[in-house]
């Protein structure tokens, strides 16, 4: 049974379990919605033959807050604090994604300094997000009683340094509300750049510790190597993006391939791997940590002087007028392509007629019916953790 299932390249997500020939009666296990490994509230129904998963049916929606309905009655300038709560591990990039869509719709230009600031924030946010992921992922694998807690503590220690720096500029640990249409709200404080550089030096010097505690650890390798293999072609079809896609051998990164912010002024090195398993996803994310540190330094060195928004930032609904139009803008966040699709309904409305968020985590979770069959129950935790889902973004 086990061998037969592992050979199937693309399991049938619509498999009728009545057709499954199992040695014993299949067991139905509800994993979640409250389970420490589900990173929030998410449920999967697992049909198990012994310990082998035969079929997996995911059920998102336990955190569906109806944000898209809410956005239809908020004006464009009121949306930023709302989207902070989507990807609450990387709110900076959520804010950027929605404001860039509005800038495209309202045809507002962003000053160069603001674009540099956004790039710096985005890269620092990527470091904070990947650190949080690495810590919680090892916690999933090792558990509180194994070695997992150690790396969790180390990663959170470094993450706090970045949150402190963000707090200095924006006044908040997260949910910053620092981006607006046409630029940023907060300029840097004096001496901030020097603090960032020393924080980057600190994190860089500790990266080798993370590596030795994560994928150079034998137990970690055994739990992740060859587990949850995702084929690159299938990943593309499912709309998977970000580190998961790059770990499956697809060389795709919007920072380089469709540049936004100030990424067209630097060369972004994209980390890829071909194995497509949980180990490859870890390696890609750790490589991205290195690359982000390098990019933060580059952007800080090249930071131009000038205004951070269009002289008078758009703060009120009366400052703009939108007739019709549909716009989609997607940017590369720590989890992949986060996009905003805006439909303006005409008649000069100050609110969007329809707003849709393209959430990378939702696409990542849609791989589960394909990846889980053939894996064991313990692999399920590793696979789920390696996808780095943020349920606020999945369910919205």
């Amino acid at each position, binding site marked *: 049974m086990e061998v037969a299932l592992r050979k199937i390249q693309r399991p049938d997500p619509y498999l009728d379990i009545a057709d499954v020939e199992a040695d014993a009666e299949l067991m139905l296990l509800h994993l979640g919605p409250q389970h420490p490994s589900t990173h929030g509230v998410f449920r999967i129904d697992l049909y198990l033959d012994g310990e082998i998963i035969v079929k997996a049916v995911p059920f998102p929606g336990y955190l569906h807050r*109806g944000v898209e309905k809410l956005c239809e009655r908020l004006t464009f300038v009121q949306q930023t604090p709302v989207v902070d709560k989507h990807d609450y591990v990387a709110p900076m990039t959520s804010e950027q994604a929605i404001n860039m869509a509005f800038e495209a719709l309202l045809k507002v*230009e962003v000053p160069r300094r603001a674009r540099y600031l956004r790039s710096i924030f985005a890269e620092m946010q990527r470091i904070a997000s990947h650190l949080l992921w690495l810590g919680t992922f090892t916690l999933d694998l090792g558990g509180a009683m194994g070695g997992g807690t150690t790396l969790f503590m180390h990663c959170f220690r470094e993450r706090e340094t970045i949150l402190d720096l963000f707090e200095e500029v924006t006044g908040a640990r997260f949910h910053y509300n620092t981006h607006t249409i046409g630029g940023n709200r907060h300029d840097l404080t004096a001496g901030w750049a020097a603090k960032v550089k020393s924080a980057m030096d600190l994190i860089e010097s500790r990266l080798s510790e993370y590596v030795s505690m994560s994928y150079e650890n034998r137990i970690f390798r055994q739990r992740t190597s060859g587990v949850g293999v995702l084929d690159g072609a299938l990943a*593309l079809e499912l709309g998977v993006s970000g580190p998961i896609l790059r770990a499956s051998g*697809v*060389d795709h990164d919007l920072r380089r391939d469709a540049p936004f912010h100030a990424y067209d002024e630097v060369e972004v090195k994209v980390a890829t791997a071909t194995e497509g398993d949980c180990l490859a996803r870890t390696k890609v994310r750790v490589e991205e940590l290195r690359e982000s540190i390098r990019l933060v330094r580059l952007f800080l060195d090249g930071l131009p002087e000038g205004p951070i928004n269009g002289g008078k930032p758009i703060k009120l609904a009366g400052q703009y007028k939108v007739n019709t*139009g549909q716009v989609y803008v997607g940017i590369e966040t720590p989890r992949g392509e986060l996009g905003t699709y805006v439909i303006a309904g005409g*008649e*000069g409305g100050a609110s969007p007629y329809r707003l849709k968020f393209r959430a990378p985590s939702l696409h990542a979770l849609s791989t589960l019916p394909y990846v889980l069959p053939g894996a064991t129950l313990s692999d399920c935790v590793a696979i789920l953790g390696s996808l780095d889902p943020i349920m606020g973004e999945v369910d919205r």
Partner: protein
Amino acid sequence: MGVDKPRTSLPLFDEGGRSYEHPLYDKLLSMPGLSVGVAPLDRLLTWGLTNSLWVFPMATSCCGIELMAAAASRVDLDRMGTFYRGTPRQGDVMVVAGTITVKMAPRVKRLWEQMPEPKWAIAMGSCAISGDFYRDLYPVVPGIDTFLPVDVYIPGCPPNPESLMAGLLELAAKIRSEQGKPLTAPVQKTGGLVATKPSIARIGDPERDPSLSDQQMEAASRAAESPVARPAEELEMPPVPETAPGTVAAPPTFAPELVELFQAHGVVDFPKDAPPVVPLARHVALARALVERGYKQLVYVVASHWLAGKGRSGNVAGGPEHHEVAYGLRTVGPKRGAEGGSKLAWWSVRVEAGGAAPTLAHVIAGADWQEREQWDLVGVRFSGHPDLRRLMMPDDWSGHPLRKDYPADAHTAPWR
């Protein structure tokens, strides 16, 4: 020897009218001087409880991250004896950190019931306290105290780890204040710290004025309409900065090499600011052709609902009630100089009321979940879909919330 006199036992806990009755227990209670004997024990128990409040984290969203940060290196709740347990059986305090939706609330209640007595509940953050700005939206429970007895409210969005620590200390003080009460009396939890409760009557409150929802709706629509009413010369358009070398957020432009392909599939008009409309009959064939040309990554499926007389400008303005479903596919490939890079192709189809769009799930597997979500929320049907179930809302939900005729604060939730 028959004992006819009624028992005078006190209920230890009262669940569904049953009270704890045990002959030995009754005998213990009637022993003179026992209360004096157990008083030091009570103090010991309270001391133990307040110094080892084990938390069952009911973390759903953003506050859960701060909950984690509180357990991590900087704040380190362990030194207060607070430790997180992933199972309700080992928890003393349920910390509800995050928004609770109608789909999640029955599970929270059930987990609460699975926690052994004595137990306490903390509402962490605005969403758990009142529902935050989601409170009048269709899927959100406006505060967990609508179905749970809350002991301590920790305000913030999200509260700092230090605020959580303060909240736990507050709870310890509350437990100490309950010390010395008879062991047999069940802890009657009312509403916790009532002073911090929002003063607005909830939608479910019997005292709430039913016209309040309508007033809120009117106010919201007035706010949305007011800038339109302002004359154009009053609008303060921000000046375009001189330093800007060009706009960064480039809207998707239609790839010129695709024009022929789209024309072959029945597209006549290519609007500048909206996706071209493809006839329903040619839509699947077009998607197949695009995938063959390298547009292999599914980006989005976005449905929008238009009531009769409404419609986007351009080639399909107004008309009867309909849905518009927009699709986006991407190419992948590294950008080298001006060559390569990622290009986006977008198009949309128009689905008349009562009709259905042919599914793309057989062409590109990711369309499965995307179309399920759009059917669930916007109510557009997809014919030939292999598994058209709701994705976000509970299975027994009625209606499609993102339809324009769906009330903004619907009263369909059982909590309201």
